[in-house]
């Protein structure tokens, strides 16, 4: 058991057989249960959960409280990706390396679909994970910067509420801004 005590953060399994819990020391990899809006329970390490400012203040307000923290605004799918991000971030807390961190962040967003990114934004916002919000906002900005208006509408699921005359006027006024746009 000495090796696992030295590296408590390396035990990243979501669940553990209950028989093993008794052998763990009180400090090592304490787990917290987080319940999503669609009633899925995620068991995450305390160090990961403390990355969520919202959860952190929940425990600061009521230190000895409940086993399961409800996250009513957080669906499971984006939440699992948010956890993935925070686990990576924790590694850089212990061992800061800005270059590696940037590389890891860009790897993270590269693998995500447009929908993934857009779904994670409100979750990161609700959980107050500033680093992730920065990464997501920049990633979305990079993806839409050179795109057409139609692409952006479908990216965010926005309905066009202009009349065709109004839209034509806007396009005419800033015609130069509609040039050199990437193909959809």
């Amino acid at each position: 058991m000495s090796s696992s005590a030295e590296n408590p953060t390396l035990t990243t399994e979501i669940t553990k057989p209950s028989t093993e819990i008794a052998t763990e020391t009180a400090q090592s990899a304490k787990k917290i249960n987080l319940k999503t809006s669609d009633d899925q329970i995620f068991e995450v390490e305390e160090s990961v959960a403390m990355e969520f400012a919202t959860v952190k203040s929940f425990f600061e307000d009521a230190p000895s409280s409940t086993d399961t923290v409800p996250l009513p605004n957080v669906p499971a799918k984006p939440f699992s990706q948010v956890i993935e991000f925070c686990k990576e971030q924790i590694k850089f807390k212990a061992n800061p390396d800005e270059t590696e961190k940037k590389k890891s962040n860009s790897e993270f967003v590269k693998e995500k679909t447009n929908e993934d990114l857009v779904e994670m934004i409100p979750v990161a916002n609700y959980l107050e994970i500033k680093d992730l919000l920065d990464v997501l906002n920049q990633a979305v900005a990079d993806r839409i910067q050179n795109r057409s208006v139609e692409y952006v509408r479908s990216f965010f699921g926005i309905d066009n509420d202009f009349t065709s005359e109004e839209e034509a006027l806007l396009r005419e006024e800033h015609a130069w801004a509609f040039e050199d746009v990437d193909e959809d």
Partner: protein
Amino acid sequence: MPAGSCLPEDMIKETLLRLPVQSLLRFQAVCKRWLALITSSNFILTHCKHRPKHSIMLTNTWFGENYGISMLEADATGKLDHRNLPSSPMNNAVNCRGIGSSNALGNYPPRTFGFGFVPEINDYRLLIVDDASLEGHLNLRAVVYTLIEHRFLEGS
């Protein structure tokens, strides 16, 4: 329904603040909510602070009758300065609603305007070119506004 349609405005704003002016001018046509957000003075001010290298913005009355130009400047310290340009014979003829930024160029035949930072003299210049060419006879007239001197320089 796609998830994005319920993104609150403050989260949309955080993304839009990271875009260059050309994208913002294009995305005014996305929907009415985006148009209102991008042309709001609050957004323009914040965008100025976010992008110090693009610290000149032209603002104008949306769907108004007045095409006068005003200029907004944010320096590196975030200090904001808003000033109306002095009147010029061409001032009300320039159709440049919305926002623009340094080193951008607009083209409204027969007028072209461009504005940018000139590092050598540490000045911002706004250039308006009026093309009065007739039947192959080239006739260009240009005026330049200088931010330092706060006036129009007439050229020919």
